[in-house]
């Protein structure tokens, strides 16, 4: 099974890697990261923080562009073009197909972030070296890696959801709409929870908690603020728990995607 999944993942990876649109996203993202050297000029005090926020936002945006303009359409493209028949006429199950697509797209996402991450870090190093220490006192590589891993984990979760929606509905556009709506709910739900936390309604708070299980709070994987600290402000156990929740959530969603896709007629 692993060999078949990896075989499919390989062609998904190669196909994505050679897409001009994705090369465009990479070029745009690198240019945007280089712009960080100018972005810092807008700030007079917390230059390190502003630069770090900007660079991580660029990585996040590049990943979102990849997810919402490429990943949402992969399965629907295969179906619309008929490539799905060539692929599934091989001894590959529907579940292995979904897993293969997921692994291939994850590999592309990791490749994207492996390219943008070092560029971002080197940009931050350059900025730090060009300033007095009061404007950029601390830059921790391990904490940078933690924040980078947080970005990757969030994007893998969104990719898992895209797989689920791709397994449920036909067509790239409906998957895009559903995925965008999902992301909007995930962004807004913590704000609602914070607003209602002071009220006594236990039922409402419980409902919102259950909804958070379905629409995870991405801010729990946002470690941007830690990049500029010498020591972590969060407990390691909490960080480990947050990553574990993300990984398990992605596993559940991909498993559901496999289950639904295995039961669907291909058209």
């Amino acid at each position, binding site marked *: 099974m692993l060999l078949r999944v990896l075989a499919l993942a390989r062609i998904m990876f190669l196909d994505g890697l050679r897409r001009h649109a994705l090369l465009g996203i990479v070029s745009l993202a690198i240019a945007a990261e280089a712009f960080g050297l100018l972005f810092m000029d*807008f*700030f*007079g*005090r*917390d230059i390190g*923080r*502003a630069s770090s*926020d*900007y660079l991580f*936002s660029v990585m*996040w*945006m590049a990943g979102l562009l990849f997810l919402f303009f490429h990943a949402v359409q992969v399965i629907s493209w295969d179906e619309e073009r008929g490539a799905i028949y060539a692929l599934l006429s091989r001894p590959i199950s529907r579940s292995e197909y979904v897993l293969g697509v997921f692994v291939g797209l994850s590999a592309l996402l990791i490749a994207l972030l492996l390219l943008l991450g070092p560029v971002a870090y080197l940009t931050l190093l350059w900025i730090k070296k060009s300033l007095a220490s009061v404007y950029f006192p601390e830059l921790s590589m391990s904490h940078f890696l933690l924040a980078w891993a947080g*970005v990757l984990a*969030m994007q893998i979760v969104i990719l898992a959801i895209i797989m689920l929606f791709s397994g449920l509905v036909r067509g790239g556009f409906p998957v895009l709409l559903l995925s965008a709506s999902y*992301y*909007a709910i*995930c*962004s*807004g739900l*913590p*704000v*609602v929870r914070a*607003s209602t936390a002071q009220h006594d309604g236990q039922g409402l708070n419980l409902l919102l908690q259950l909804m958070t299980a379905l629409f995870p709070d*991405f*801010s729990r994987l*946002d470690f*941007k*603020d830690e990049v500029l600290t010498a020591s972590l402000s969060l407990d390691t156990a909490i960080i480990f728990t947050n990553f574990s929740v993300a990984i398990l959530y992605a596993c559940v969603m991909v498993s559901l995607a496999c289950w639904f896709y295995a039961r669907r007629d291909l058209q």
Partner: protein
Amino acid sequence: MKSALWLASVMTAYACVFLLQESSATHEKYELSPTLPVQMQQATLGYFQQLGAEMLHIKSAVFLGGTPSGIDHESYVDNLADHFDAAATLHPKLLDTYYLAESSLSWINSDSVRRANHVLGKGIEARPDQWVLSFFAGFNSFYYLKEHDAAAEHLQRAAAVEGAPRWVGHLASVIAGRGGDIYGGLIWLRAMLADEEDPEVREFYENDIRMFENALTVQQALEQYEQRHGALPSNLDQLVPEFVPAIPDVGPDFILAYEDQSLRMMRP
């Protein structure tokens, strides 16, 4: 040929209409567009929250950098304060928000000072390592709002931060005294003396402590007078000699002032 003529005429028509539009457009009113409610921004920005705060900072800075001379500052101050409030909520750790808020809001009117302090409060909570934010709040309370108690509290908090200059703590004591909290000022001076190793600075603190202790005897005399007579005296001479042998000398650095039935340590 026809298509070239068509293209030329359409482009000419566009240029004419555009110039007409530009000539009728007025740019008299220099204004800052309002910001969305912060909860809406939090919900929509998601991972970009911090970047959203930085964009609000840039927007505010660009606006302030271009204000024409003679502009009515009160026309934009509420809107500007909303921007800083939103930025501080979205990204409480960004220092630039607080520096810009302090420099642009605190001097306009008393409401804007309070809003500046409200914004600074978020920074004080998020960045307890930054003494300067409490110092800003203390300065605003002392200089603009004349709220000495609040000012002393802010400055004491600033002085307690590691790396804060020594003069901040001393300033807190002086302002506490000026505000009528002589006992609070004295406690703070004694705490600073306990931590100080430099003999010259120690002498400086010891001198101030003596002056504050002298003033405290008058404070205690006032309390005793009130206990006896049910009201505070109208002037300090009424305390002599029954409650205090003489009004002590607290100079040359201070003078004792009795204003609004409150004893204060003022600078001469």
